[in-house]
């Protein structure tokens, strides 16, 4: 008898029930499988794809910066960084790494600790730079310790390389990592910068960043769950940035910097410019700094200390004095005054004589001239730099006339040079006095006297002054000073379109109306400063007529002008006098009389220019008078 036949237990039914439950369970699994694979399959496939595919950027090299003759000034060279792959250290105790790494790679333990701390907030597949600019010894050390520290590797990256000794530092500027503040700035945001990007932070590196920077390439890779790269699916090489040709002539630039370095105060500015176009041939500001600090060392402890020291330095080496220094122009102010005096009819070519009188008495105050020049004509007044003459010219023009002159020569505007952070000069006006001297806000006659000799109410940037003087040299064309000669084109590469060549967008020069006879008279005076019995006669170059004007900017009142409070020395010029090719300005801080330092410094620059353009050594050299 089969035990199944016992109806009291319903065994058949019960066994069937168990079997049905079993099959139902399997059917549930099948249904779920259908949902995951068929209904939602493509969604999950995409999600799975996203977690395994990564785009790793390949940094593009920046464009090279060259002088006008194609000589390389700034370059990018490949450097090696020691990298710590994070995926290999997950769960590892990082603090145990600090000691051997800081010893083996000679890195400060605090900096390592700081970087490990930063790592916590970064995505897992990104690696951390342990040491930039690894030496061959460092690379060898990493190779030799592969077994001990498999998480270390060496990676190549382009790094900006600036010339030594701070050559042209204020013009080229420097690059640096984009700051958190810049990342917030919509100006940068819309260009799609990301943290860690290296961008131009100063000088032409900053102004022309868009052209200089390349387009980063990338590698599309498959990573596993620990971030290891398992395969490279696609590699798009980067497109390098556009090479930049500056208007700078390195020979003139070197000479200018050398001159400044020789000056007793080692502080000052020399600018050389083509007055016919505004191309800047040299722009030296001293003291200078090493831009490599920002591109290479800023992440190290020493680099940060160096930067802090630069910021604290009372001599402000980071300042480009050519566009950020505001100095009283001293007697150089007399040149635009002379032009405006003639144009406004205060004097005429025939009747240009005015009294010197050894000075002028206004109310109970006597403002003296440095000498007694009788009743000089304009040419003599410029040649001898007669203050008394210009006090009276200023009074004839009135403050309105002086202000009109300032407007004409745009001395109260930025020059528009292609450099960041240019400052505007301060020029005389009743409003300026009210702000400058609130206890005595009323503009008086004596103030007009002061405004006419460049000592009290005007503080001009060297570049704005040179621009005005150069414009007078070429008969009244105010060009925009600039540094960009050309960006070289870059051909199309993969997804990146070709980038066309670019030159400076020359705005039309502003025309300052100067009648030819007025022009001639003022230039005669400036010619006489150097080539006759003038204040800079000692820098005369036979066969190369320099037209110029010395200036001595008082820093403190007379009698106290010694040591570090000595006057600033100016010389502003162009040459040849009647067919200008080049304009040169020098401002030497706190060295005294304009003719003694600034003029010889300018002459040294002309010597180089002469030799280059005339193909022969310059006539008799000038020794610096000490």
């Amino acid at each position, binding site marked *: 008898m089969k*035990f*199944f036949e*016992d109806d*009291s*237990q*319903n*065994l*058949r039914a*019960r*066994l069937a*029930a*168990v*079997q049905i439950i*079993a*099959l139902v*369970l*399997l059917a*549930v*699994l*099948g249904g*779920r*499988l*259908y949902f*995951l*694979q*068929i209904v*939602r*399959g*493509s*969604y*999950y*496939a995409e*999600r*799975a794809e996203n*977690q*395994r595919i990564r785009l790793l950027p390949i940094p593009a090299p920046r464009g090279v910066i060259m002088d006008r003759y194609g000589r390389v000034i700034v370059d990018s060279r490949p450097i090696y960084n020691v990298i710590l792959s994070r995926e290999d250290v997950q769960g590892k105790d990082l603090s145990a790494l600090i000691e051997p790494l800081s010893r083996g790679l000679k890195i400060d333990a605090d900096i390592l600790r700081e970087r490990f701390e930063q790592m916590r907030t970064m995505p897992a597949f990104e690696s951390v730079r342990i040491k930039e600019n690894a030496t061959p010894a460092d690379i060898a050390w990493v190779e030799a310790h592969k077994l001990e520290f498999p998480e270390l590797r060496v990676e190549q990256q382009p790094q900006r390389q600036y010339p030594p000794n701070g050559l042209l530092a204020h013009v080229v500027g420097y690059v640096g990592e984009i700051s958190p503040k810049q990342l917030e700035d919509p100006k940068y945001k819309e260009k799609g910068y990301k943290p860690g990007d290296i961008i131009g932070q100063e000088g032409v590196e900053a102004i022309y960043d868009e052209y200089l920077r390349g387009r980063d390439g990338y590698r599309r890779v*498959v*990573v*596993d*769950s*620990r971030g290891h790269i*398992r*395969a490279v699916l696609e590699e798009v090489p980067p497109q390098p940035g556009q090479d930049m040709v500056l208007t700078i002539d390195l020979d003139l630039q070197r000479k200018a910097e050398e001159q400044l370095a020789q000056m007793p105060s080692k502080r000052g500015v020399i600018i050389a410019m083509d007055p016919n176009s505004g191309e800047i041939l040299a722009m030296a500001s001293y003291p200078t700094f090493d831009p490599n600090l920002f591109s290479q060392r800023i992440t190290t402890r020493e680099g940060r200390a160096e930067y802090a020291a630069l910021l604290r330095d009372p001599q402000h080496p980071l300042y480009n004095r050519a566009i950020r220094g505001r100095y009283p122009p001293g007697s150089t102010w007399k040149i635009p005054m002379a032009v405006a005096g003639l144009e406004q009819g205060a004097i005429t070519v025939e009747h240009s004589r005015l009294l010197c009188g050894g000075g002028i008495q206004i109310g109970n105050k006597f403002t003296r001239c440095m000498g007694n020049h009788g009743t000089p004509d304009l040419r003599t007044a410029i040649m001898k730099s007669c203050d008394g003459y210009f006090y009276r010219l200023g009074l004839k023009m009135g403050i309105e006339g002086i202000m009109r002159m300032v407007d004409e020569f745009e001395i109260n505007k930025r020059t528009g040079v292609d450099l960041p952070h240019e400052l505007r000069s301060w020029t005389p006006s009743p409003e300026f006095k009210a702000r400058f001297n609130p206890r005595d806000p009323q503009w008086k006659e004596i103030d007009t006297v002061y405004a006419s000799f460049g000592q009290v109410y005007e503080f001009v940037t060297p570049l704005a002054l040179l621009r005005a003087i150069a414009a007078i040299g070429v008969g009244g064309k105010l060009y925009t000073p600039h540094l960009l000669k050309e960006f070289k084109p870059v051909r199309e590469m993969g997804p990146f379109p070709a980038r066309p060549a670019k030159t400076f967008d020359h705005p039309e020069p502003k025309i300052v109306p100067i009648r030819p006879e007025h022009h001639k008279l003022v230039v005669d005076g400036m010619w006489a400063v150097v080539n006759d019995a003038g204040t800079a006669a000692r820098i005369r170059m036979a066969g190369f007529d320099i037209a110029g004007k010395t200036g001595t900017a008082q820093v403190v009142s007379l009698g106290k002008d010694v040591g570090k409070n000595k006057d600033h020395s100016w010389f502003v010029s162009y040459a040849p006098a009647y067919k200008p090719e080049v304009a040169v300005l020098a401002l030497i801080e706190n060295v005294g009389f304009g003719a003694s330092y600034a003029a010889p410094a300018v002459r040294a620059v002309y010597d180089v220019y002469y030799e280059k353009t005339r193909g022969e050594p310059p006539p008799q050299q000038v020794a610096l008078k000490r």
Partner: protein
Amino acid sequence: MATIFEKRRLRDFDWFLASLATLIVLFGTWQIYNAQPTANFWQKQLIGLGISLATMFVVAFTDYRKVVQYAPVFYAIGILLLIIVLIPGIGLKINGQRCWIGVPGIGQFQPSEFAKIPTILMLAHYFSKHQRGALRWKEIMVGIAILALPVALILLEPDAGSALTYFPLLAVVLFLSSIRMWLVIAALVLGLASVPTAYTVGVKTGFIKNYQQERIKVILDPESADRRGYGYHTWQSILTVGRGRLFGTLGETEYSQSRLKFLPEPHTDFIFAVTAETTGFVGSMALLIAYALFLSRLFFNARRAPDRAGMLVIAALASGIVFQIFINVGMVLGLLPVIGVPLPLMSAGVSSVLATFMGIGFAISVRMRRFVN
């Protein structure tokens, strides 16, 4: 005489069941290879299959009635093994669980897998004596005791997943020994009602740990769960399964979820995800259908068993297997929280395959004696 006897035995041997099981193991070995081609798990699995087939034949040709008769002895041996594994030094601690016994020269084995067979035999031994009418309370209590002993020892390892797979054995044996229907219904209702209650109480009292809560949350809503932490396994498993779509990713297994190490434990607990990824809906459905055929064949044999003990052995075995399939695949498909239970016949692991084939051996032994009274 003996040869005729042997011939008849061979003819009655359940070739279908044995072949189906072997095919599933071979299919699983292929998936193990797909998951970890560089490791030697798939070779070990093939060796395990060889040992398992040999063992199955030996068991099949043994008279199961004798074995059931001596079930208490086997049960005692099983319990002994479960005690031995708890002794530090003999039992190997892996991932905080002491559930392996190292055997010098062979490797290691998992007593909780093997103890299932003696437990089934013991239950069959005891409940085969019951012939008519509903179960008495005393009988139910004895059944619970038979189960409680190994379960308690396994919980000491601790291996909750393995312990869980013991419960359906008793449930089915009690059910087929005519436990009263109202008790079954009452147990079901009570069970269903108590799950949410137990969960809330458990969370409030802190009995259910935070990570266990997270594992449950990820089932309910994998999109918003902590996918990098406790939800990681489930989320990655779902992605792996979904990625297979209709036909799978065969031919480009090089960058599969398991090869890129996104999928954890691909050759053991998550072998079904690997199958779903490489062979797609087609392949994984085929596997589920193979399981359905395999289980139906077991129930078919149970129905033809010559006595109650044989029927109980096969039915308990089948329900144990289906329960384990459901727990494992349910976990892989994100229906159930992560519980470490191998997929029968598929997951890498000689212990699990060998124990399953021993069970199949008993099922075949029962079938071969269906006409012998």
